[in-house]
């Protein structure tokens, strides 16, 4: 298995631990990640508010870089917004006849071109569909017994395109969590919105949405995420959200590959738990026991 690896901007900064743990887990699974040199921003949620064409050209530039390498493989994208933007290009090419020509007229400025046809896949899709729970289970050597994980999928990993899971009631993380020896926290909030960019521009609304998620996660040891934006909203504002909601809503929030890596017995250089903003002492204690090969009660 090999993929073009598009990490995206957040994974170079605030979501560094997502980047490093994804690479470490893929390496442990024998999956090859091909770095795209000179990749640039996908446009995030900003380009579509300024210009339709720009919102196609920015992701298409990265697809064109991959096309030039002439390797037949899919994109693997850990960030849900990057995933949506890259996938959007080929989805729109299906119905918009003149679009490819316009995109290429712009890309010509950098002597790049794109013909369409490269599949953009979310990391969760690759782990759940290509790798699968069986292969994950075979690599587990530190079972996460007694750990209760709330699977959080967020929005753009599933909607509008998805295709690998139910976009309203996703389940694909559950067999993966069970393969790690952990338990699934049964909740109905896995596909609800965290407030996304409103945390920057209209904080009170994002605090409300995040608060509902954190409340529903009570009883779990941690939330598992697959998006740097969801992660930041859930892990970085817990104090403010707790104050707004009048209850203690602090909980650990980890990226899915960090949890997989922990069960694989990977070291801190691959997991980078020290970079997480919400990693509670009780979870730290459990993880210390897993590392020593003890199943905490």
């Amino acid at each position, binding site marked *: 298995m090999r993929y073009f690896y598009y990490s995206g901007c957040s994974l170079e900064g605030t979501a560094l631990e997502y980047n490093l743990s994804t690479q470490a887990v893929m390496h442990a699974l024998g999956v090859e990640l091909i770095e795209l040199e000179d990749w640039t*921003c996908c446009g995030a949620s*900003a380009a579509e508010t300024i210009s339709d*064409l720009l919102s196609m050209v920015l992701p298409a530039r990265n697809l064109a870089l991959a096309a030039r390498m002439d390797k037949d493989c899919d994109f693997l994208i850990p960030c849900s917004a990057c995933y949506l933007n890259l996938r959007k290009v080929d989805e729109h090419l299906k119905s918009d006849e003149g679009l490819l020509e316009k995109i290429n007229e712009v890309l010509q400025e950098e002597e790049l071109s794109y013909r369409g046809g490269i599949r953009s896949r979310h990391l969760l899709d690759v782990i759940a569909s290509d790798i699968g729970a069986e292969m994950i289970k075979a690599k587990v050597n530190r079972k996460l017994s007694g750990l209760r994980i709330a699977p959080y999928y967020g929005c753009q990993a599933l909607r509008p395109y998805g295709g690998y899971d139910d976009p309203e009631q996703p389940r694909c993380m559950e067999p993966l969590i069970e393969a790690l020896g952990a338990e699934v926290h049964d909740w109905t909030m896995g596909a609800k*919105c965290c407030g996304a960019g409103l945390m920057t521009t209209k904080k009170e609304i994002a605090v409300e*949405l995040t608060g509902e998620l954190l409340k529903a996660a009570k009883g779990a040891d941690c939330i598992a995420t697959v998006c740097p934006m969801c992660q930041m909203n859930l892990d970085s504002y817990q104090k403010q959200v707790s104050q707004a909601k009048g209850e203690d809503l602090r909980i650990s929030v980890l990226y899915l590959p960090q949890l997989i890596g922990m069960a694989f017995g990977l070291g801190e250089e691959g997991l980078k738990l020290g970079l997480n903003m919400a990693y509670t002492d009780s979870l730290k204690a459990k993880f210390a026991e897993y590392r020593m090969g003890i199943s905490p009660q």
Partner: protein
Amino acid sequence: MSEEKRERAEGHTAEDFMASIRENILSCMQCGTCTGSCGSAYAMDFTPRQMWRMIQLGLVDEILHSRTFSICTSCYYCTLRCPRGLPLTETIHALKQLAVAKGMAEKKGARFYRTFLDTVRRYGRVREMELMARYFITMKSAVLPLSFTPLGMRLMIKGKVSPEMPKFFGPGKLDAIFRKVKELEASS
């Protein structure tokens, strides 16, 4: 820039643009599934369902002065569930474009997006620290940065963001692409 000039610079007139938005929404039958699916509808002045009706009726100014479209988080629930299969989230993006082009977009959102894209044009990738610093500068607010200071400090301590010297002069990494997009849009 005058509004007329600004519109020309964006490559379309408000009327043309609004016509294409209305086209998207014409077959809305007002069932309200969108509103029932929207996590942030509670904070909107008009619900999504009401806004589609206002588009059908051509109430452009009322929509652009409302906060409804700027509160959309692009969760795509309405798009997924719309029984008519209408591109609702994309229509909201189009309304955001129109508001930005007319200089009417809600201040914070529009400035954040512009600052964001300017860092992308300049460096090719987003520099989170500089993005936030420049966003605060454009907002000319002394209070706003304070609410983000504790998080910024925690991120810096963890080494996840680092202050880098901004490069305001010299060519930007994606100048050619941004210029060409503008040129094509002005001629279409």
